């Protein structure tokens, strides 16, 4: 399996950047997810790694060897697309065998390897069927099998679950992850779905506006987002982000609320905020304790059942709604007053102008 390095790789279309100069190392056997909204540069990055797209400048290395100008077929990679791209006139078996035949692998060896991957993906029973007669899930399994059968140095996947129904997506997500655990193939996976990224990635590279916003483990990205974009993008709903004014250990928040800043953060806030004391307070929906002596107060805007839990939507004032995850039986009437606290170890602060997270040694 290959280690993939990107060194100052950039891509321009005319004058505009599709990908700004980017440095990244994907370790051998690692599952890295490129995550971001459409147009952020994630697919272009993947296509440059594959060689389907030429870099404007910079270098791409596989196991230390420069492959920047190597043809895609010479890079020993396998690509899985959102659209299955199977040959409709060939059976599933012939589709899977195709890349091996192209490489001139012997007949017995092909037969053996096709059976191996078919067993791994549990598609032995559909090998004689044409793709058109298979479910979306099975078509994508055949496409995965065709990628796996080659035993490539790296897998590149571009939204492979994007075209599947919600019910298949959940189980295919688990299957692909499980496959990765068994094979330990270096994998680069592109998606705009943050749940997929969290569930699958060893590391997530969050991109926006042709730039990397943060590259870290799912837990770091979730609990310590590097900036407001990441805080908002990760989570469903994203982090609650409320702008206020800091002075003397207190952030004054909308709706005449006073938030007492935990002791451990005060030095950081004292030293790193702009002169007017503006700061963005961030906390996840599950970082809230609702109780009658809570220091923050709000009115109920809506509450709704999500199956296993309830989401409360609380208004600090008409322009600021806080989302709170609560027990499933918790219900308030519209406009009821609700008091709450933010768990001190789960609060985050962001600079209002740079939008970057303030760093606290203790977090």
């Amino acid at each position, binding site marked *: 399996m290959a280690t993939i390095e990107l060194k100052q790789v950039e891509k321009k279309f005319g004058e505009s950047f599709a990908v700004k100069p980017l440095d990244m190392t994907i370790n051998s056997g690692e599952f890295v997810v490129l995550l971001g909204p459409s147009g952020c540069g994630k697919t272009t990055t993947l296509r440059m790694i594959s060689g389907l797209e030429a870099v404007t400048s910079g270098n791409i290395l596989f196991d230390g060897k420069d492959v920047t100008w190597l043809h895609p077929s010479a890079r020993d990679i396998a690509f899985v697309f959102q659209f299955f791209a199977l040959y409709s006139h060939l059976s599933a078996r012939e589709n899977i065998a195709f890349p091996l035949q192209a490489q001139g692998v012997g007949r017995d060896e092909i037969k053996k390897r096709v059976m191996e991957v078919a067993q791994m993906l549990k598609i032995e029973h559909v090998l004689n069927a044409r793709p058109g007669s298979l479910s979306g899930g099975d078509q994508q399994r055949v496409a995965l099998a065709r990628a796996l059968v080659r035993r490539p140095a790296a897998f590149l996947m571009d939204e492979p679950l994007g075209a599947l129904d919600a019910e298949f997506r*959940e*189980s295919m997500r*688990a299957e692909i992850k499980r496959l990765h655990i068994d094979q330990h193939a270096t994998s680069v996976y592109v998606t705009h779905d943050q749940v997929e990224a969290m569930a699958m990635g060893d590391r997530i590279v969050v991109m926006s506006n042709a730039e990397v916003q943060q590259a870290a483990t799912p837990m770091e990205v979730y609990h310590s987002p590097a900036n407001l974009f990441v805080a908002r993008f990760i989570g*469903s709903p994203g982090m609650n982000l409320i702008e206020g004014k800091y002075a003397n250990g207190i952030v004054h928040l909308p709706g005449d609320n006073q938030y007492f800043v935990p002791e451990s953060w005060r030095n950081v806030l004292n030293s790193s905020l702009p002169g007017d004391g503006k700061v963005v307070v961030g906390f996840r*929906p599950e970082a809230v304790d609702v109780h009658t002596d809570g220091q923050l107060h709000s009115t109920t805007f809506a509450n*709704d059942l999500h*199956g*296993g839990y309830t989401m409360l939507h609380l208004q600090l004032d008409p322009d600021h709604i806080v989302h709170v995850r609560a027990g499933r039986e918790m219900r308030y009437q519209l406009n009821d007053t609700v008091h709450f606290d933010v768990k001190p170890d789960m609060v985050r602060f962001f600079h209002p102008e740079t939008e970057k997270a303030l760093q606290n040694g203790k977090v």
Partner: protein
Amino acid sequence: MSNIRLENITKTFKDTVAMSDVSFSIKDGEFFVLLGPTGAGKTTTLRVIAGLEKQNQGHVYFDGELSDELPPAERDVAFVFQQYSLYPGMSVFDNLAFPLRSPLRNVPEPEIKQRIQGAAEKLRITHLLERKTAKLSGGEMQRVSIGRAIVREPRVFLMDEPLSNLDAKLRESLRVELKHIQSTQNSTTVFVTHDQIEALTMADRIAVLHGGNILQIGTPFDIYDRPATTIVAQLVGTPKINLFMAHRHNGSLQVVDSPLTLPTPIGDIPEAVLLGVRPENVKIAADGQYTGQAALIEPLGVETIIHIRVGDQTIVSIVPGASPVRLGDTVRFDVPGEHLHLFEPTSKLRI
């Protein structure tokens, strides 16, 4: 506002049955969601209510009055579609005013202005009123479409997947606002969706449709906690409900291909059952009664999904926050008896 009753409606298109003997009543001021996969008959149901389709059998009542022969325009319903269908050359204000200025209604201009201001405030689009709709984002356009329905003050709102074209973040926030607006003005609303989260979070009551049949009608709690069939059970909830074949054996339910044995609930239980348990009810505990192997861990931040291999079966558990469980660990867990769902294996109906 208004109540609606559908009585034994059947609607066929050539050989296809889109609605098969469908009956339900929607109360005045209710948020009623039609939930089902593509082809379930949801949109046809909406169009029959609107009078855009004529049923083959059965009757539609508005406020207790038989309305089968009432033309669409006289039913006083407002539609919001997935596609925005606004007039691109017109300002937002003129788009909102359009239905009110039609010769049919001829609402006086001062009242038009008043209604538009009210709707615009609710939908937070006051700052957009002078803008041409072609210059709006998808989320803004859908707000205007909803606004155009609100200003008409119809008897009933009919919404056909109005949020499906928006990206995930927008969908989330508009969902909450729509629910808030509906509950403040108590408008009777029929909302069609294939998205179970939209149904659970917004509905006062949900009707689950499948293949033209109503499988269940109930509150979100009813649908989630007491699904009438395995289809309903699998349609709501993420991750999906665990579903296993099981047989009665020595006073327990033995899950096939697995050492899992669960206590048989009291009552008339057949020899073989389909046994369902939601992932949040698979409780990981150090002294848990059952043992398995962690085969896959999906950390979502707010919670963690753990796939536990037990014999040849996998049972999925979801726990709050991060989990100390690592891949390959032996995991002990409990499945409290009160959270079991039992279904008859042939009919798939709840026992």
